[in-house]
């Protein structure tokens, strides 16, 4: 396949979009086909992208495909593969904002228990070099709105867009903390499982595990050590979700969790019981202040 006006049309259409779901992208591709008077077929899209990327590679750019950690939905991002000064000129953030974002990214990656998410409270604890908490909060909101960070019930994690766009930067900066999914070889953060076999370091995206091992994980084998798959869900949110799935009646809401292993029961919420603190912010329970997450239901443990 040659490089044609169809590729040029598509690039112009996508230069401003930059990051979108697969069906949006296919829609754009279809409109370009109409303009270029080429017959549209969604099966042509993958080879089309192949030719596109061959050319984009000469400019240190790439149209990258990825799956969102939570839903497994496919997205495309038009990224720079070379993060040098020139590429940095493209950012619409100020230098201070970029520095703060990098700090937030570090916090997320260093969160305990491979949670890869933090509370916004933690993010706002140090706001330099931004001027004020208000500025930082506004910036965080912007990051969420423009899809650089995901916000799940007040917990911030790296969005697919960030993982695709900053892939090289993240891997260079955190070579030991970040792992690749054994199946798709992309960075694994939230919504992940690791192999329960001792000494096996295999990690999978949940959506990859769903495809490879089946949703119920029955009879599947670890792609790395070949033992029967016994997945341990990493990350606090996944653990909470597992607890919701495992729990019998009597528990009403997802919102708190305990430390430690996956099977721990959550405390009942009768009066008089010690309330457990969220561990998601990566801080030590005893040393840090207990801070309430934004979305907790009122009255939880406050009125004793």
């Amino acid at each position, binding site marked *: 396949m040659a490089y044609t006006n169809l590729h*040029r*049309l598509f690039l*112009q259409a996508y*230069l401003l979009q930059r990051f979108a779901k697969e069906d949006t992208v296919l829609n754009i591709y279809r409109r370009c086909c109409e303009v270029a008077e080429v017959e549209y077929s969604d099966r042509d899209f993958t080879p089309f992208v192949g030719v596109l990327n061959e050319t984009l590679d000469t*400019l240190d750019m790439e149209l990258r495909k990825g799956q969102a950690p939570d839903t497994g939905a496919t997205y495309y991002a038009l990224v720079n593969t*070379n993060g040098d000064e020139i590429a940095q000129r*493209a950012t619409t953030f100020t230098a201070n904002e970029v520095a703060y974002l990098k700090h937030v990214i570090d916090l997320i990656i260093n969160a305990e228990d491979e949670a890869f998410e933090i509370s916004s409270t933690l993010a706002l604890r140090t706001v330099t070099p931004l001027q004020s908490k208000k500025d930082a909060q506004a910036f965080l909101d912007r990051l969420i709105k423009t899809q650089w960070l995901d916000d799940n019930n007040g917990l911030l994690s790296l969005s697919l867009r960030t993982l695709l766009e900053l892939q090289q930067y993240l891997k260079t900066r955190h070579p030991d903390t970040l792992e690749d999914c054994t199946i798709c070889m992309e960075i694994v953060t939230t919504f992940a499982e690791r192999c329960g076999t001792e000494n096996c370091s295999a990690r999978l995206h949940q959506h990859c595990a769903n495809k490879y091992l089946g949703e119920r994980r029955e009879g599947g084998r670890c792609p790395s050590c070949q033992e029967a798959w016994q997945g341990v869900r990493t990350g606090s949110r996944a653990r909470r979700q597992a607890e919701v799935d495992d729990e019998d009646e009597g528990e009403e809401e997802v919102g708190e969790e305990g430390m430690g292993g996956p099977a721990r029961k959550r405390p009942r919420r009768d009066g008089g019981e010690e309330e457990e603190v969220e561990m998601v912010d990566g801080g030590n329970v005893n040393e840090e202040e207990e801070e309430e997450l934004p979305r907790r239901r009122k009255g939880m443990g406050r009125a004793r």
Partner: protein
Amino acid sequence: DEDEDMEEAGPSQRQILSQPRPSDASQKASQTVVDDEDSSADEDTQRAPAGAAATPQGASRGEQYLAKMNPDEIDKKVKDLVRLALATELRRQPLKREDINKQVLKDHSRAFDPILEKAQKKLRDVFAMELVLLPSREKTRNTSQAARRAQEDRTTTTAKSYILRSTLSIDARETLNNWGDDQPIMALTCILLSLIYVHGRSITDATLHSHLRRLRITRDAPHPIFGTRDALLGTLVKQGYVEKIKKPNSEVNVNDVDSEGCEYVWGPRAKVEFTEDGVVGFVTEMYPELDPNALKRLQNDVRSSAGLPAGVAAMSQV
């Protein structure tokens, strides 16, 4: 039937790439060498210097310099210039020649012209885009042609700046129009530029403020999308869509307490990105279902309100 003809003729019939604009063509003929001042005295849009491969004197200085450079280094600089152009355009900033020298060429600024020309080719091949020289600002409206020319001559080559423009035809671009997050502000920009145009290409700030008030864009209360009026206008000026001119000896409009006695005109970027036909088309689209005669009359009205004889296509971009 027109459609059938198009289908039979195949893809080549449909205009994907635009025709070069009349003002561009006249610039192509001009010879440019790195240090010369080219005919930038007029306000026409120009294409970037053509690399001067065909000067009667033989290879230009730029080309001679290029011949001595390492080919890998040349390729890298071409690539970096393309990437810099894309990055700068993403922020809607003009790309200044001095930035090109500093960030891309570094010690090799003498190779500017041929490297720029190679970058243009790359931009056209990959993206169907090109760098276009921005016309200078209007500064004051009351100076004579000669005075303006004198002002231009004082502008050195290094003060030049470029923006990226699509080489796709209007037809193709309309189908693809995807301004992403910029959609609302681009729509508003079209409206404002049209307003300025039908007001005779220039509008007092008092009048502009009252139009904006109708759109609920006011000085104090921030609009949910556009923010406050002055911040919005500031952005448009910075991006080059609109230019603010202080009129000498003007009387402040007593009816508008925050009029500064300024005027707004089309900025350099608007002159490059929008055409007169485009604006006339945009304005007439507001009127539903006109018969061809009424449409023609309306088009003439729009043009004459901009201060031009009816039906004359402007040689300048406005």
